[in-house]
C-alpha cells in the first residue's frame, strides 16, 4: 500500500469549479493525507520541519493546483523553495526523497489543442512543467505524466468536471493500492480522465 500526500494549492477557492470538488472527493479516500496549503499557511509562514516530516512519511507526493500563468501558485513555490532543502531533498546527503514519486494534478483554462506549436499557447503543456519535472529529477524522484483537466472553465457545463473528479478518485485509489501503472504513466505526455481506465490494472 502506497502512502499518498496530497498538497493542494489554490488561493481563490471560492471561485473554484474543479479543484475544490477534487479536493473534497479526496477526503473520503482512506490513506490519503490532504494538505490545503493556503488554509494551513494563510500568512506564508511555512513550517519546514512539519512539511519535511510529512514528505518522509509518504511514498507518492501529489501537487494539485490550477495552472496560473504557466506556473504554480505562489504559495506552492514558497513551499518548494523552503521545504525541498539542500541536504534534505538534493545536494550532499540530500537523498531523503529518492525513489519517491512526484505527480501533478493540474487544471488549465486552455483546451488541449492550444498546447501545441500551432495552438495559441504555442508550447506543449509539458514544456511549461519542465521546472517541476527537473525538480523531481534532482530529488531522485520519478515523475509520471500529470493528471490534467483542459478547458477547465467550460468543463463544469459540459459535465467534464464530474468525470474528471471521478477519474481523480479512481487514480488516487489505484495509486494507494499499488495498482496504478506508473511504467505506462511515465511514458505518457499527460493523463486525462478518459485515459485513467487504461492505467488502472497492473
Amino acid at each position: 500500500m502506497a502512502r499518498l500526500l496530497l498538497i493542494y494549492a489554490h488561493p481563490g477557492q471560492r471561485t473554484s469549479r474543479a479543484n475544490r470538488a477534487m479536493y473534497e472527493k479526496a477526503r473520503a479516500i482512506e490513506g490519503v493525507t490532504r494538505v490545503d496549503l493556503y488554509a494551513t499557511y494563510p500568512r506564508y509562514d511555512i513550517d519546514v520541519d512539519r512539511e519535511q516530516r510529512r514528505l518522509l512519511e509518504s511514498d507518492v507526493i501529489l501537487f494539485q493546483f490550477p495552472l496560473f500563468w504557466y506556473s504554480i501558485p505562489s504559495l506552492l513555490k514558497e513551499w518548494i523553495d523552503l521545504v525541498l532543502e539542500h541536504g534534505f531533498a538534493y545536494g550532499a546527503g540530500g537523498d531523503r526523497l529518492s525513489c519517491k514519486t512526484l505527480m501533478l494534478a493540474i487544471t488549465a483554462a486552455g483546451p488541449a489543442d492550444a498546447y501545441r506549436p500551432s495552438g495559441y499557447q504555442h508550447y506543449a503543456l509539458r514544456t511549461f512543467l519542465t521546472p517541476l519535472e527537473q525538480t523531481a529529477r534532482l530529488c531522485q524522484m520519478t515523475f509520471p505524466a500529470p493528471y490534467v483537466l483542459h478547458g477547465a472553465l467550460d468543463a463544469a457545463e459540459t459535465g467534464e468536471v464530474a468525470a474528471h473528479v471521478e477519474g481523480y478518485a479512481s487514480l488516487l485509489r489505484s495509486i494507494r493500492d499499488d495498482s496504478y501503472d506508473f511504467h505506462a504513466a511515465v511514458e505518457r505526455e499527460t493523463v486525462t480522465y478518459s485515459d485513467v481506465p487504461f492505467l488502472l490494472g497492473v
Partner: protein
Amino acid sequence: MTDFLLLAFIFLTAGIVAVPIATRLGLGSVLGYLIAGICISPLLAGIGVDVISIQHFAEFGVVMMLFLVGLELEPSLLWRMRSKLLGLGGLQVLGSVGLIAGAAVLLGQPWTVGVAIGFVFCLSSTAIVLQTLNEKGLMKSDAGQASFAVLLFQDIAVIPMLAIIPLLALPELTEAVNTLSTIEFDGGGHASDEGHEHGLSLVAGLTGWQTGLATIAAVGVVILGGTYLTRPIFRFIAMAGLRELFTATALFFVVGIALLMSLVGLSPALGTFLAGVVLANSEYRHELQSDIDPFRGLLLGLFFMTVGASIDFRLLFASLGVIIALTLGMMAIKTGVLLILGRIFRLEAGDSWLVGLGLAQAGEFGFVLLSLTVASNAIPQQTADYLLLIVALSMLLTPGFFVLHERLIEPRYRKTQQKTADDIDEVSDVIIAGHGRFGGIVNRMLRAAGYTPTVLDYSASQLELLRTFGFKVFFGDATRPDLLHAAGIAEAKLLVIAIDEREQITELVRYVRKTYPDVHIIARAVNRPHVYELYAAGCRDIVRETFDSGVRTGRSAYEAMGMHPFDAERLSRKFVEYDKYAISQLAETYDPAKPIHRNAAYVARSRALMEERENEVFASGGAFAARIDRGWSPPKKEDVDAAKAKGAKLKQSD
C-alpha cells in the same frame, strides 16, 4: 520661624534669579549659584547669618552627590571604559596633582600643602563641562567621551582623596586647633580629638582594634543591607502606592548611611558612595536617582551660594594680579597635561585641544575638598581663601575657553576631524515606558532580536514577576522627565510608550517631542480619538492598543464561520487597509476641543463611512468583495474564447 522663612526666601530668590541668567550666558549653574552667593553676602552679613554653619548643613548635598556618583558606576560601564578611564583619567589626575604640587612647593609651600592644593585643582567641573558638551552636542564625539572618562575618574578619585586629606594635616595647625578646642570644651568634659567634630560617636571609648572592627561592621551593614534589604523595603513601601513615600525612603537610605558612617568615624560621603555602588545594579537605581537628585541639586546650590557668600573681596582686589596669574598658571598646567595625554591616547589634535581647554578649570569638588582641607588642617585658612578665588575664577573663565576653542582651534582641525566616525556603543538605544501586558511584548520581541531595552515600570509586583524571569527592569514613573533623563532618553534612538493612561501617554509624547526631537517615538493609543491627539502631539508612529488583537479576533471569527483561512486573512487585511483610510478621512474633521460625539462634522463623516463600508464589505458581490478576489478569479469565458479565436486565426494564417 520667621527667621528661617526669611533666610530660605533670600537664598531661593538669589538662586532663582542668578542661575537662569548664568546658564543663559553659558556660565553654568555652579557659577550662577556662586554669583548669587556673592550678591546676597552683604545682606546676610547685615542680618547676622552664620554662613559657615549653613555651609556645613549644605555639605550634605555633597554626600548626596557622591551617592549619585556611586549609583552611576555600573560595573559594565566601567569595564567598557576601562582603558580611557584608567589611562586618560588616572594619568590626568596623577600628572596634574604632581605638577601642581611641584609648582606649589616652588612657590614656597610645604609639600603636604602642595599635594592638597593639587587635589583641589586637579578636579574639573563636571557640572560645567558636561552641561556645555551636551549643549554643543559633543557628548558622543571622541572628545566628549574622553572628557567624560576623565570626569568620571575624577569623581571616583575624590573618594581616596577624602581619605588622604586628613593624613596631610599640618602638625602645627592641628596643635593650635586642639589647644583651642580643649580650652573651649574643658568644662563639658568630653574634649574631642578631631577638633571640630564633636557629635555623637560610637567608637569614642574603644581601643584601636575595636574601632577597626566597628568600622568593618558598618561597611558590611551598608553592603549587605544595600544588596538584600533594598528590594523588600521598596516592595513594602510600594504597597502604600504613594509617590512621596519613595522619596522619603530614598532619603532615609542616604541619611541613615551617612549617620552610620559618622557614628563609626568614617566619612559619610564615602559611605553613601559605597551604598551607591552597591545599588548601581539594582532595579531601583533610576528611582533613587530621580528622588535624590532634586535634594542634591538644592543642597549643592545652597553650598555654592555659601561659598560665594564667603568670598573675600578685599583679598581679591588686594592681590588681583597674583590671583589671575596663579589661575592661568594652574589652567595651563592642566591643559598641558591633557594635551600630552591626548597625544599618547591618539586623540585627534583638535579633540585634544577641546579636552584640554574644556577640563582646564577647577570645579565644584574643589570647593568641597577645600572646606575639608581647612577642617582637617591640611591647608591654612589664608591659603584656602586664595585657592577659593582661583577655583572660582577658573570656572568663570571656562566659557571663554570653549569659545576660544570653537573660534580659533577647531576651524584649523575641522578637515581632519570629519574623517573619524563616531563608534560609541550605547548602553541602550531603546527605552520602553511601561512594562505591562503591552510593553512586555515589545520588550520580549526586542530582546529576542538582541536589543537590550531599558524598561521603566511603576508596578512593584509586575517588577517582581519580571525579575523572576530574569529581565532587567527599572522601577519608576516613566512620565517624570528626571527619570526619563536618568534612563538615558537624551542618547536613546527610540522610546516606546506602553503605559496605560491616555493623558500620560499624550503628555509624554508632547514632552519628548519638544525636548528630544531626535528620539523616535512609538506610542500606544487607547482609541481612535487618541490617535488624532497623539498625531497632533507630534507622534508619527502610533499603534492602537487593541486594534490588532481585535482584527485577529475578527479573522478567527471569519474562520470559525467557515471562511477559508486564506480568504479570512485577505479580508482582514482589506479591513485594516479600509480602517486606515477611514481614520485619515475622519482626521480632517477631528477637533481636539470637542468630544467626538458633539462634533457634528465627525459624526456625519463617520456615518457616511459606515454606510460605505457596509455596502462594500457586506453586500454580496460589492466592490469590496470584487477587490478581494481580483487576480485569482478565473478569466471570463469571453476572454478565453477570444484567445481561442485568435489562436484559430493564427492557425489559419500558417
